[in-house]
């Protein structure tokens, strides 16, 4: 609840309180699955490793990957790539068969209120089994929490925490993620 302070009028306080109530109503509701455009593949793994400077042989060579339990002739994907497989990419769209709802349904509500900027602040990933070449990854998400309004170095906004569980084509959980963003109104544009 916003208290009447820092010069806000009654009407402004009421508007913010209604907005925050609307945000809170999204907590816990699950969306998904969000599918991957591509199965886990060597080309995308190589592009990632090339850009990151990662020379781990398990990401390039099946014989090295086999020591980590990968199937025959398959490489292992960097575990930290988990989230990338289900990203929308250039189109901004999830592949056909995905849930058509927003994976983070509070985002349009923030945009409508002028909280247009976003920056990620925390990412906690747990890896339960290797993600290997040929795997087909999907994710299901829910909003864990939305903070009260915060004034940060970047601007005024809200921290949103999302939980995502990632599964493979055998419906086995391969990992999970807690992801926190700040959705905010910047103090000012940089000229």
């Amino acid at each position, binding site marked *: 609840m916003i208290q009447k302070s820092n010069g806000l009028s009654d009407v402004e306080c009421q508007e913010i309180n209604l907005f925050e109530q609307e945000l809170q109503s999204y907590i816990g509701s699950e969306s998904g699955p969000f599918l991957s455009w591509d199965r886990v593949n060597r080309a995308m793994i190589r592009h990632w490793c090339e850009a990151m400077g990662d020379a781990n042989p398990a990401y390039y060579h099946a014989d090295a990957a086999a020591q980590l339990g990968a199937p025959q002739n398959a490489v292992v994907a960097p575990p930290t790539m988990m989230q990338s497989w289900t990203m929308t990419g250039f189109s901004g769209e999830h592949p056909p068969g995905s849930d058509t709802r927003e994976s983070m349904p509070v985002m349009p509500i923030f945009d409508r209120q002028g909280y247009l900027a976003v920056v*990620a602040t925390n990412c906690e*990933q747990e890896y339960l089994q290797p993600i290997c070449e040929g795997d087909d990854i999907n994710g299901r998400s829910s909003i864990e929490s939305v903070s009260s309004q915060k004034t940060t170095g970047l601007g005024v906004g809200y921290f949103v925490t999302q939980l995502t569980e990632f599964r493979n084509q055998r419906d086995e959980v391969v990992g999970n993620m807690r992801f926190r963003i700040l959705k905010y109104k*910047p103090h000012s544009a*940089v000229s």
Partner: protein
Amino acid sequence: MTNITYRAVQVGDQLPKLAVDITAKLITATAIASRDYQNVHHDQDAARALGSPNIFMNILTTNGFVGRYVTDWTGALGVLKKVAIKLGAPNYPGDTMQMSGEVVAKNDVDQSVELKVIGTNDIGHHVVGEVVVVLP
């Protein structure tokens, strides 16, 4: 690539430091490789309009560098179980991220070690991370 064994690791061991030169090329290439097309990772004008002086590294890439930093040390037989990061000062082009790490705990039950990984740039801590990796 040599492999670190669980027996050889002691709490307090320091990982070899790694310096990562942050360039616009690196920021955009890693954003795209991680499938992140948010404009603040490739469009300087868009970044400025949103209050940032320049494009900056996306969180998936920071996560990737933390993972890479740890498996560079363990060798290919190290299995990441957890990477938990908190971001601070953004990585902008022209900066250098200095990565360091330390073993903070050992768990005999599953032969895992817990590491604290820090990446600093000219402004301060870009990332503080906790990593759990299982060793042979």
